[in-house]
């Protein structure tokens, strides 16, 4: 039949087979997205307007929330990437023949809310660490323990996200490390390079595209996540997701368009960032794949 099944050619058959998945995605996610965008440009009476966006841009509280959101998202992502990279670099040989890597995956299995609660349990001023230090005599009073959760900088949130996302970073980077042709490391050494040069010239070029993509996923996820900021954040400033939640569930329905626009803005930013970053790394990735010795 040469790729034909009577009434459909190969290309059409692929689209036909994907139709259920595409339909579910487009109808559920697509409709939800469209609905959120539409409502962000509407008043509660259904009139089309930019008022909610104008109100956001004139709101100092919104910018404080945006600043906190970016700070937590970017710092958590950077720390998770660096710690994940260092751990992968140290452990990939060990993980190759070992079932102990399951230990590293455990944080992935724990829900974010539970992770947040654990951080609260360990790091709050009445938590286990402050009690331990108090019992050991390091602290005179438990109140001397630094405020690490429910404070303005977002340390507790950052700690939780780092703990949760490091295994995800390892999960993403481990296959890359196994794919790297380590003969290149020997080339670097015989050309006079040291171990740092090996990392920079051999490992980093392969890791970079995956790290950029992983970073984007983490930033987008953290910037829009709700449970951790709700549990570990302070009343003001709060993360954007918490503010949007409040606007949405407030008794005042006129605030609902604000809730939508407050979440669409970081979404659009993440989308633009993704287009820019993926565009930038794609050329590099293709060059690496085509140019490797196989």
């Amino acid at each position, binding site marked *: 039949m040469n790729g034909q099944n009577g009434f459909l050619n190969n290309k059409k058959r692929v689209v036909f087979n994907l139709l259920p998945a595409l339909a579910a995605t487009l109808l559920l996610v697509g409709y939800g997205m469209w609905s959120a965008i539409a409502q962000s440009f509407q008043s509660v009476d259904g009139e089309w307007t930019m008022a909610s966006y104008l109100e956001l841009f004139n709101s100092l509280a919104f910018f404080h929330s945006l600043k906190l959101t970016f700070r937590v998202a970017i710092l958590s992502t950077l720390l998770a990437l660096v710690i994940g990279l260092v751990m992968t670099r140290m452990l990939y040989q060990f993980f190759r023949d070992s079932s102990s890597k399951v230990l590293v995956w455990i944080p992935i299995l724990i829900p974010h809310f539970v992770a947040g609660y654990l951080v609260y349990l360990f790091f709050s001023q009445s938590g286990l660490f402050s009690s331990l230090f108090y019992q050991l005599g390091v602290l005179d009073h438990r109140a001397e323990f630094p405020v690490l959760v429910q404070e303005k900088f977002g340390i507790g949130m950052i700690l939780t996200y780092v703990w949760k996302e490091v295994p995800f970073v390892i999960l993403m980077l481990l296959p890359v490390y196994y794919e790297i042709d380590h003969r290149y490391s*020997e080339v670097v050494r015989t050309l006079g390079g040291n171990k740092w040069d090996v990392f920079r010239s051999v490992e980093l070029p392969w890791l970079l595209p995956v790290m950029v993509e992983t970073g984007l996923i983490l930033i987008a996820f953290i910037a829009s996540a709700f449970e951790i900021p709700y549990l570990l954040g302070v009343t003001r400033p709060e993360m954007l997701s918490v503010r949007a939640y409040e606007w949405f569930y407030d008794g005042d329905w006129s605030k609902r368009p604000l809730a939508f626009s407050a979440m669409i803005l970081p979404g659009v930013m993440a989308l633009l960032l993704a287009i820019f970053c993926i565009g930038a790394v794609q050329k590099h990735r293709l*060059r690496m794949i085509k140019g490797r010795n196989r």
Partner: protein
Amino acid sequence: MNQLLQCKNMSKHFSKVPILQNISFHVRSGEHFTIVGPSGCGKTTLLRCLAGLEDISGGEIWLKQKSIVTLKPEERSVVLMFQDSLLFPHLTVIENVTYGLKRRKMKKKERVSEAEQMLMKVKLLHLRNAYPHELSGGQKQRVSLARALVLKPDLLLLDEPFSSLDASLRESLRGEVKELLREENITALFITHDRDEAIEMGDRLAVMNKGTFIQIGEPFDVVTNPSSIESARIIGEGLALEAGFIPLNKVIAIPAEQKPSEKDYVFVQGKVKAVTVKNNLPCYRVTFDQGSILAVSDRNLVVGQNVLLSAKREDMKKYKNQEEQWRRVQ
């Protein structure tokens, strides 16, 4: 010529399995030393030990009268060229060639100028801004050679650098490489399992088997006077028999039924497996118990025909006394 590299009783074990066994040899300054041997005999391990990529289990390595055993690979003036070109895929040709110079903290202007000169010598200057995926296999190997030579190492190690190329490209490239190494006065240690390549590339030739050198000498001498049946099988151009070695130009294939007198001739039974042409002469690939050779004949033979590989008894060379040979080559 003074001895640039000296290896004394070098040995290497992997999990108590000996890979290199008490290897001793030297390479003179400016010399091209070739090592030939079957796959798995330890050639690559030897090169890796010299480059510092593997620690040796025993013995000494001296480069320019200094022991380099404890030096890291980056501290040795030794560059290893691998079977594959292994160019960094994210760097352009010029960036690949300047890579080692950059590690030496040479100024950008100087290193680019040196790299361009080297690229001119390998006839690839016009591709200076190309990426590795835009180059052919031969071009990649040339860039890899330029990347090694631009560092002007005391010793260049080449690990079967043409094995990934097709036959015609391999032949043309090895001529170019030999010439360039001579021009740059580079001392090179070259390993291969290709007999022709080993003979053509080396000023001296070592035959390696089971982790040790079994013969060292000038290529013509080694090829025509193997010191043992193992050496004859690996490198000898002729018929390697237990009793001795018969050079190929003395061997003739004759139909099995035309057996001459056993008193004056040596015979080996064989079968024609293929007919080919070499130097405009018909040649026959004849297989026999211990291998196969390409023999000529004054008759027209056909594939599948039983033949005798025949040579005058007086043309058979006895293998040299191994110990005596060994003393001579060291």
